[in-house]
């Protein structure tokens, strides 16, 4: 066996704390080591060529690169080995940067640690076996979950490239939160005007199968070959017959508060379309509120429908679709401001949430765009906008929701536009305007006469004093710029509620085998370099489901996710990682302990042979099943017992040889 060891200086990243030259010289004496070199940047082309030359000239059959984390450069060095004709799995990395030079202050200790890590790798790499990744074909259809602007964008990009998309939306119409908004910052263009063409296109595209009022229940399979079970809820409307005339909605006697699209500020009927431009145009009957479904009487909609499209007997359908990739763009929930009782939402009528205010300013909303108090008649003369409600607050959500400053500025502008002469106060902690033309918008607002008070508002109460304050709300808070308590009586308070993960995001994550942050936002593969992919190959995330963001960023992510999917479809084949588990069918006792232990549902039980079998495409090589197996029948390739023991022995032998560790420590 001929092993080559390459110790990287990483400029001064490693060399500042590890004596790389000494380590390289020391490693040349390790068993089986043919050549040991050190070099300033192993990852450079010259560094890689060094390895390639040695493999070819010296006939190396194993390579150890002591540098940074394999997360960083394992593909680089495996690639170098492969180019020189060596199986890439015969290359092993020692992480002497994150695990040694960056975490030790003492140069001697860091050098010793590097030696131990390299010895471990040299000892391990001897047991490496050549492994060969398999190829699987890719189904060119895509499942997009969530019909907000992120999902619509992603679906259109893929559909326009000529591939089938299943776009699944939980509500009766696509559009998401963006459809609720009136104006969008900083350009103040009409949200519906820019969104509805996209909604219409998605609804009528020949390559998009639109499934609204539907939810994905189960996903199985792996990248290139997923099967998704989708429940299409009964609309109680025959879509073939319905013309979308809206007569049923007009005549329906039931009026209930619409907590979803109107954010609680308006009402809708029991048979309804959330808004006039809804896509698809067909209404749904809300069976929880429909008099016929509750009491067995009414059927008024059936009587008035000119095309007999009402179908009370309709059942939920469960569809199974086969797709190669999945994009999860399920959006966000608005923070429930009632959780902060001192701001009075749900206690005082004239405290409004941000989404309520969006609906209020919307010309198609409950007040036809007029800014009114809760009585639906009075016009406020003064409005306080409180920033960071539920955001940037360790008691609720620690994160900054990113859009609230900008939409609060937009609110202030809209109040001044609709009610000239009104007093508008912004209670803010910091004004955060990181976006193109955003700061300019803030400056415009400063000039328009909005009053800015720097300090988190402490409370909103009805504790007025004197006749002139009668009926007003008192906002209190510290003005940190002048160092004084402020007490501002206003007619209306708008709470700039933050963005939080969907209430059921943990369940959704489980359905798609992806993970969530503790808060509940979906976790990306890498926060900076791979924010679209997830740890599950073939499942991508876009929009606010991954974290709060504004519309331009959401649309960009939708397109990015589509590009990722298209590149996989274009390749046509996926490579399946070879470092995965394998069950020895001869010794497997069929106890199925491994099946319960697998976090990726990657192990099947073969009923006919009574043994477990690992699905090669699903297995992530985590090794949990190996530990769970009672009969020691599972091997994790590239992490075999032999390899791991050899690695530990290599490290321990070196440490003991260098300096005896006192037993008491």
């Amino acid at each position, binding site marked *: 066996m001929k092993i080559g060891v390459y110790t990287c200086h990483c400029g001064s990243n490693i060399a500042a704390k590890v004596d790389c030259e000494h380590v390289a010289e020391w490693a040349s004496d390790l068993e089986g080591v043919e050549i040991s070199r050190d070099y300033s940047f192993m990852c450079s082309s010259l560094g890689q060529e060094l390895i390639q030359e040695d493999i070819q000239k010296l006939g190396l059959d194993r390579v150890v690169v002591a540098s940074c984390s394999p997360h960083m450069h394992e593909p680089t060095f495996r690639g170098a080995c492969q180019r020189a004709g060596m199986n890439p799995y015969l290359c092993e990395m020692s992480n002497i940067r994150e695990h040694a030079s960056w975490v030790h202050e003492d140069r001697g200790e860091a050098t010793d640690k590097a030696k131990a890590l390299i010895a471990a790798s040299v000892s391990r790499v001897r047991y490496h076996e050549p492994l060969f990744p398999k190829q699987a074909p890719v189904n060119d259809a895509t499942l997009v979950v969530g019909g907000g602007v992120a999902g619509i964008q992603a679906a259109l990009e893929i559909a326009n490239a000529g591939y089938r998309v299943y776009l699944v939306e939980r509500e009766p119409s696509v559009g998401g939160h963006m459809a609720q908004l009136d104006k969008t910052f900083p350009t103040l263009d009409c949200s519906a005007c820019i969104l509805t063409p996209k909604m219409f296109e998605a609804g009528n595209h020949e390559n998009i199968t639109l499934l609204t009022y539907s939810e994905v229940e189960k996903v199985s399979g792996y990248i290139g070959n997923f099967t998704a079970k989708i429940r299409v809820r009964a609309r109680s409307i025959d879509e073939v017959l319905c013309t979308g005339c809206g007569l049923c909605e007009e005549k329906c006697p039931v009026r209930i*508060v619409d907590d979803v699209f109107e954010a*609680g*500020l*308006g*009402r809708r009927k029991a048979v309804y379309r959330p808004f006039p431009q809804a896509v698809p145009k067909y209404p749904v009957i809300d069976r929880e509120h429909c008099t016929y479904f509750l009491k067995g009487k009414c059927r008024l909609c059936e009587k008035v429908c000119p095309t007999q499209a009402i179908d009370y007997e309709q059942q939920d359908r469960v569809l199974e679709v086969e797709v190669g990739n999945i994009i999860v763009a399920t959006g966000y929930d608005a923070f*429930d401001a*009632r*959780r*902060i*009782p*001192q701001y*009075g*939402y*749900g*206690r005082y*009528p004239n405290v409004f*949430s941000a989404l309520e205010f969006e609906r209020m300013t919307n010309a198609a909303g*409950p*007040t036809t765009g007029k800014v*009114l108090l*809760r*009585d*639906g*008649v009075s016009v406020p003369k003064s409005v306080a906008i409180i920033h960071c409600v539920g955001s940037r607050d360790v*008691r609720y959500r620690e994160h900054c929701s990113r859009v609230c400053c900008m939409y609060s500025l937009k609110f202030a502008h809209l109040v001044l536009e609709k009610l000239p002469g009104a007093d508008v106060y912004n209670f803010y902690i910091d004004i955060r305007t990181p976006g193109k033309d955003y700061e300019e918008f803030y400056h415009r607002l400063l000039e328009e006469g909005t009053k800015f008070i720097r300090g988190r508002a402490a*409370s909103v*109460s*009805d*504790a*007025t*004093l004197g006749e002139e304050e009668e009926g007003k709300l008192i906002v209190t808070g510290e003005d940190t710029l002048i160092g004084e308590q402020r007490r501002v009586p206003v007619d209306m308070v708008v709470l700039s509620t933050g963005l939080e993960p969907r209430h059921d995001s943990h369940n959704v994550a489980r359905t798609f085998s992806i993970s969530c942050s503790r808060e509940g936002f979906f976790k990306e593969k890498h926060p900076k370099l791979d924010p679209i992919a997830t740890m599950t190959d073939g499942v991508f995330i876009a929009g606010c489901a991954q974290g709060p963001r504004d519309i331009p960023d959401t649309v960009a992510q939708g397109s990015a996710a589509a590009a990722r999917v298209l590149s996989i479809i274009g390749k046509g084949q996926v490579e399946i990682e070879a470092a995965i588990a394998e069950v020895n069918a001869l010794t497997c006792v069929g106890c199925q302990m491994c099946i319960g232990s697998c976090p990726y549902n990657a192990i099947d039980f073969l009923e006919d042979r009574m043994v477990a079998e690992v699905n090669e495409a699903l297995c992530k090589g985590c090794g949990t099943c190996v530990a769970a197996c009672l009969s020691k029948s599972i091997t994790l390739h590239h992490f075999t017992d032999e390899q791991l023991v050899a690695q530990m022995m290599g490290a321990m032998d070196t440490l003991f040889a260098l300096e005896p560790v006192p037993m008491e420590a």
Partner: protein
Amino acid sequence: MKYAYYPGCTAEASGAAYDATSRMVAKELGIELQEIPDWNCCGATEYFSIDHLPAYALVARNLALVDADETPQVIAPCSACYINLKKVDENMLKHKDLRADVNEALAEGGLSYTPGTVRARHFLDIVCNEVGCEAVREKSVHSMDSLILIPYYGCYIGRPEQNFDDTENPQSLDRLLSGLGAHVPDYSLKSSCCGGHMPQIGMEIALGILRRLLDLAAKLNGDAIVVPCPMCQLNLDAYQSYVNSRFGTDFHIPIVYFTQILGLAMGMDPSTLHFGENVVSVEPMLEKLKAAQPIEKPKKKRDKKALPMPLPLSQDKEQL
């Protein structure tokens, strides 16, 4: 139910009515109170900012005097006493140095205290969460449905956070009083400060704070402000006439302890409930109670123009 009982200094002076009625109510509810022998002052709010160690030792002495095996929980009716007992226990548990220093001081008097052995409880907490509002309601014989009672908790209940009730919108007193039939409005200043010892430091500031509290209670047509703290009671009651002369107002709102209301509900003779010790007369409230004219709840008019209003979180079934 047997608890150690720490009356606190006010029990022997301005808050005598609270101490006496707490004992009466406890007896009626089957709570046995074991007064801590030879207890001393808790140092109130001031001592902690003057000298740390003696302040801690002063409170810890009371905890050390509790027979923790027999009564591992101590009831304090006064919110300041309650918070001090709780704070000392928790901080001694958290900080080893403090524990050692305090115990060194206690050793001079032949005492020691192991933090975590005596849990301080507010009397309101015991009544609402151990006895339970439902059990209290069952014991009551007179409905309070002719009264509008303003629940005022003061700033110590619910503070610091993770106390037995919400910091900003506590509910226990609301639930207790509504359980007795009273009309209980959402008093938004319920957990605001009463001024504490501010009347001794800055009368102008104190009167401003008190006026705000009284003004909102008057606006809600309160027949009385109900308190679980002798400091709040004293400030609102004794300085009410000061507020009137300073601001030209005309408040006559009786300030009563929740234990006095419980006593009335459970049928105790009003003459035994120490109402005579109040500065602002309680007579109008008692008269109203005697007349027993239930308050008519305002009919909700359905205004077609009005926009829908979000339900309070406590009434939203989907969220519970």
